């Protein structure tokens, strides 16, 4: 294994980023519990008494203190990492944990800063050699009932550090069959994409339908099945103007108001788009099990809990004009939110993927990483390949920020 450590400039940058990332993450979770009334629209979010003024002072202090930026780093995150572990694994308990705690984490920040100044915990990007594994077929088939072109993408797995475009599989035959026997042929685009376009106003099917995916490639047949679950309506997208709250850049923030359907076991993938761009960072992946994070809490039939509600705000890109000081939305921006109903298996697939992609955030409290579990089976040996086949029902809503 060879090691290459970047200079202190790099470290400082990553540290500053971590602080802001942290504060942002904390901020994602600083909100009151779900509203109980059915179909309520957005209302202003109440924050703790005396909170804004306090944060103003603290906020400017944190912002102005370069030492804090330099030294407040992953040791701090390790505390939050523990909490994060709770958060990601969570239920309403975790939600509640998350709602109130960050308000007052500032002193913790200071305290740990002093510790960290002394200990100097840090992260470095390093070079590592990993023995390459054999390339395998990856099925990227997340379809929905929208009346628009549906794409299935076939690729190969790559060495972890290849950092190149993913190799396309462009010599397969792909089709999806509805339980009523109708077959949708996905046309090979030659670049790994296979596309089916419904006729105007048409779609793959509706909630309650079952679908079969079949791929023929190099003499093997791959199959998968998915079920289109029901999806709730989006009641509204709320926009709030925030001013002087630590962790929130001054400006416009969005919140999703929708209510989980009564009955346990509904799973959703909530996708947000800012001006047509899908918010696709791993930290932005927004999954819901009923109205909360996980099955254990049995938080059913209520408005999505606050962290889920607020995760439609983009995570900033440090060192760009879209950094932590920039609010996620400004007047004229378009917020578009889609709720995709997914099967429980798809939910666990995405949850595992998210755990894997974000495990570093847990620092010393990381969990053993596990592979995602595919539902695509090779017919010849009954073994699962990589990727997933999912068919969702979608509800969507768009709002222009005033």
């Amino acid at each position: 294994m060879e090691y290459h450590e970047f200079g202190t400039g790099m470290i400082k940058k990553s540290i500053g980023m971590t602080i802001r990332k942290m504060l942002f993450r904390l901020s994602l979770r600083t909100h009151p519990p779900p509203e109980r009334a059915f179909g309520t629209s957005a209302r202003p979010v109440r924050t703790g008494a005396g909170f804004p003024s306090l944060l103003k002072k603290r906020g400017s202090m944190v912002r102005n203190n370069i030492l804090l930026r330099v030294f407040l780093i992953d040791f701090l995150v390790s505390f939050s990492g523990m909490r994060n572990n709770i958060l990601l694994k969570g239920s309403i308990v975790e939600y509640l944990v998350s709602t109130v705690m960050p308000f007052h984490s500032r002193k913790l920040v200071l305290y740990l800063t002093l510790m960290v100044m002394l200990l100097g915990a840090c992260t470095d990007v390093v070079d590592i050699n990993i023995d390459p594994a054999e390339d395998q077929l990856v099925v990227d088939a997340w379809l929905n009932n929208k009346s628009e072109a549906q794409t299935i993408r076939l690729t190969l797995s790559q060495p972890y550090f290849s950092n190149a475009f993913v190799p396309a599989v462009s010599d397969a035959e792909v089709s999806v069959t509805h339980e009523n026997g109708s077959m949708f042929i996905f046309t090979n685009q030659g670049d790994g994409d296979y596309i089916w376009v419904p006729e105007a106003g048409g779609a793959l099917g509706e909630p309650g339908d079952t679908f079969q995916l079949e791929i023929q490639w190099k003499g093997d047949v791959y199959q998968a099945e998915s079920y289109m679950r029901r999806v709730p309506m989006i009641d509204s997208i709320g926009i709030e103007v925030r001013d002087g709250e630590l962790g929130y850049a001054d400006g416009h923030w969005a919140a999703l108001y929708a209510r989980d359907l009564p009955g346990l076991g509904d799973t959703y993938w909530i996708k947000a788009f800012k001006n047509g761009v899908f918010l696709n960072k791993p930290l932005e992946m927004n999954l819901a099990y009923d109205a909360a994070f996980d099955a254990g809490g049995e938080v059913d039939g209520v408005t999505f809990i606050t962290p889920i509600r607020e995760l439609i705000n983009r995570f900033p890109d440090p060192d760009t004009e879209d950094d932590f000081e920039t609010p996620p939305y400004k007047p004229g921006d378009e917020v578009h939110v889609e709720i995709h109903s997914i099967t429980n298996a798809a939910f666990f697939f995405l949850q595992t993927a998210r755990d894997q992609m974000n495990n570093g955030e847990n620092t010393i409290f990381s969990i053993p990483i596990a592979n995602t579990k595919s539902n695509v089976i090779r017919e010849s040996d009954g073994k699962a390949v990589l990727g997933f086949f999912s068919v969702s029902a979608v509800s969507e809503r768009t709002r222009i920020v005033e």
Partner: protein
Amino acid sequence: MRHLLQVICLGLVLLTTWVSSLTAQIPEPGLAKEKLTISGYIKDAASGETLIGASIFVPEIQNGTTTNAYGFYSLSLPPARYTLSISYLGYRRLEAIIDLDIQNIRQDYEMQLVSAELEEVIVTSDAEDRNVSELQMSVNRLDIGTIQKLPTLLGEVEILRSILLLPGVTTVGEGASGFNVRGGSIDQNLVLLDEAPVYNSSHLFGFYSVFNPDAVKDVQLFKGGIPSRYGGRLSSILDVRMKEGNNKKFELNGGVGFIFSRLSVEAPIIKDKASFIVAARRSYIDVLARPFLNEDFDGSALNFYDLTAKTNWSVNENNHLFLSGYFGRDNFRFGEAAGFDWGNGTATLRWNHLFSERLFSNITLYYSDYDYEIHFGEDATNKFDWEASIVNYSIKPELAYYVNPSNLIRFGGHMVVYDFLPGKAIGVSEGEVTDFSLPSKYAIESSVFVENELNIAPGLEVNYGIRLSHFNYTGKGFAYAYGETSAGERRPLIDTREFTQWESIQTYLNPEPRIAIKYEISHHASVKLSYNRMAQYVHLISNTTASTPVDVWTPSTNNLKPQLADQFAAGFFRNFDDNMYEISIETYYKRMQRLVDYIDGADLILNPLIEGDLLSGEGRAYGLESQFSKTEGRWTGWISYTLARTERRVEGINAGKWYPSRYDQLHNLSVTTFYDLSKRWTFSASFAFNSGTPSTFPTSRIEQQGYVIPHNASDGRNNARVPVYHRLDVSLTLNPKEKPGKKWHSEWVFSVYNVYNRRNPFSIYFRQDPKRVMPDIPIMTEAVKLSVIGNFIPSVSYNFKFN
């Protein structure tokens, strides 16, 4: 009928007590004529503290004994005139002539510390041959004097950090709480503070431990050959004994460091009869930070503290009472609205009673509690409270019968009542109350043991014994039955049964045989062998790399079976140059069964059906430990090197194949040295090197919907290793010039931790470029090394003593 075994065990406990008191009262006419007994306590002359493990050698019979954990010794010999040669490391050898001709003799001895005389001439203490002559193998002792001289992290004397310098003891990294012994997980160590178990031995996650060095007398770590009087954990026993408190005169000890300050007071209550010690510590970074905070932070706390106290009373020659306690907490409170705190509390009451000169008994009653609380919420309509705890109540009678210098019988029992509160959680949201609480779990662990330490022939000594342990998982509560599923998947619930209070749900009985043999090849060399079986009935549920304070302990249940370990160890021990140099080489093989593991994506927090997410596996650990020490002279220290392997196999993980556990380290070397530069300056250094710990690395990446997901093609666990760890720490201790007769003694300790500023890896993790992924550009992925300590850390601390 379910209670039968438990009743039997309890019966045996009481019976042993009763029988022994009876036997003690029966005069032994035949024997009494043949043999007389000399017995008593060995103490420190300055403080009156009893000395544990002091050696009493009788040259006339070429045999002897050592003091027990209370400083008591007893020798039964034919009437004659004898010489007692009493020695203890760091103390002047004491020789006493006794005439054991008419009656039993009761005689206490007080020993003088050698270092007190250093000012005049360099006197070396009598080196001990304990390394060779002691029957017990796989044991490490650290005296508090040595621990205090070691280089420190931020100037704080640390007991748990010190034991990491011993062979066979490892950790997953800085900041991780607990320690791993011979391939065991952290919950397989029984950490005892005056016999009460401490369930979380860490302050501030894992940086500091709960033991206040000012109140600690003796630290012993048993890694193997564990005698049958100890039980309850698979891998080790860390037996920390507290000081009794100076019963001669008032004494004040304290220190000021970067992290916390400490102060202890000890004094006689009745001179030579009763004394006490109270020792306290508190961290104060939050106090220092206060000027920078505004009034909105009133009611906040960010600190940890602990209080250790003990008192003892020598009622008369035959009765001695000890009462000790510990209370400590880590507090993270942010105003009224949010807080997180955790801590241990223990209380121990002990009664030493001499039934006769030859029958020593001790009854211990203890209470131990570990709990944490998480609280959020500004007001009563929106809040969340979560607490969890493990509470023990225990009674533990033990007797030692000194038959003759070659024969010692110990027997006794132990009964623990457990009360587990896995999580009491109440959420109030806009006035609506939701209760997520899990019900308490109850269990009773009972055991009886007997062991016999026998000197079979000159140089050949054996300690054999058996411990019979019984566990009763009881109501009230629910017992769940789970269906079968493929390995590594969550098991479905198929049945639930309700049980009433103390109704037995599941019982387990395990005989735990133990044997240790020592053969002295010569006065300078010995060979030791041992075997022990250990059973463990309580488990720490944690799947994170470093254990967190919110991890919960859980009893064995109808689904979760007790863990078992068998360990074989063999060792060779050799001393040179009048015991100035010691070498020990040990090899061990440990097989562990029914270890707890977790399915992928296990939900371990407030999950009533947690057992459905648990897996059971086996483990094996083997290795070679060696240690070379120099115990005398201006230059002292030790080198320890361990070559070891620890592996696990669990159906459902790593395709059911063996894989290295997270704390596996092939090589582990540590060098610790002390050098007296002058009368006033002492230098010490320690160097640690170990192989990188295993970790799971992805081999490839796959793309789904624009995300890059790491993928491990072999589906393996711990398929790679983080880079090697090495670190050098140094310290200098200055004892300022003192006028003779001065009562105030002080020292300055200057330390540098991680001298050459290496960023040792704690872990390596993988992530995609944190920037937003743009179409038409390949997604970048990278590996990131996490170092918990990334600087060299200088520190200075000041310690004082007034007496």
